[in-house]
């Protein structure tokens, strides 16, 4: 799952650094992801993992790192 998340970040997060240089808990916003870019990441994750983030997850913290995104996706896909 983490590799897929990183691939999506590479394409949509418009980071100032290479996403592979970031640790799983590295702050994506610090690395240059803008609010608009995080929306594109969110929509790409929904497409790739066939999930829909509920309103309570549409906030900054959920998309702040690879680990945070993995936690959110794990929760959304746990009953499959």
């Amino acid at each position, binding site marked *: 799952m983490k590799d897929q998340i990183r691939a999506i970040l590479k394409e949509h997060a418009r980071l100032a650094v290479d996403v592979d240089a970031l640790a799983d808990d590295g702050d994506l916003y610090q690395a240059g992801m803008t*609010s*608009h870019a995080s*929306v594109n990441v969110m929509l790409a994750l929904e497409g790739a993992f066939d999930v829909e983030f509920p309103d309570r997850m549409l*906030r*900054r*913290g959920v998309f702040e790192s690879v680990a945070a995104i993995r936690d959110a996706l794990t929760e959304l896909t746990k009953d499959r």
Partner: protein
Amino acid sequence: MGATYSSQELYDGLVGSGLIIPVGVPGIFGRNAVFEDVLRRFDDHVSRVAKDDGAEKMLFPPTLDRKVFEKSEFLDSFPQLAGTIFSFSGKEKEHAELSSRVHAGESWGHLQTMTDLVLTPAACYPVYPSFTGTVPEAGRLVDMQNWVFRNEPSTEPTRMQAFRVREFVRVGPPDVVVAWRNMWLERGVTIMRSLGLPAKSEVANDPFFGRGGRMLAATQREQQLKFEVTIPVISEEKPTAVCSFNWHQDHFGKIFDIKTADGKLANTACLGFGMERVCMALFKHHGFDPKTWPAAVREKLWP
């Protein structure tokens, strides 16, 4: 007046007393001389309060360079609110078709092409490209007023499609910009209360489009990037924003390459008074005839 709130009653009252003149399109109306006098008086009052701030005055027409608009990312956030200017650029043949379609009541939009202009969506947008380069160490402060357009037809009188905003824009290092915003937030509440209006300030969000917009709104709130001074005008529970404060962090600094004296990306913030909304708040709370307003309020506006 004052105890009960109703959108329809306020609209009927404003129309009945001649203060606003309906033109047939929701959210668009004329203003009479009394309305305009109150608006100008409030504008002057703000100028008196801010007279020692050292702002540069600028005035732009209510149209914006489409390229600036495209760079600003407005369409990423608010595609539903934008107004783009189209015009005719055809020849005789297309003109004949245009005329005949208009007179026949048929659609004619396809005979228009996009111009280089959009309607100004927020009063501050035209100023940012003028900051490109390095700003002085203390930053800059600009004072503007402009008509803005929002595509949101509504019968609710405070939700207009075209209205005036008195806007101040601060550019400089982050701490300078935030301190200025905080100073004005207090000032904004004080100004409204001094006019007998029950104002308060609160964290707010812009009406971003769609599901992605919900995330942008939540982010904006979490980071406390937007505040509003609100007053109950048509509803007690949902008071009306009469003044709005946006801290853009380095959003415009990045887009328009604005640097501070030490070479870092500049921050910007703006605040805008919704001039018609302030007038409507005054009419709602003090009555439709300014001659009968409380003496303390009149002294501020007619010094």
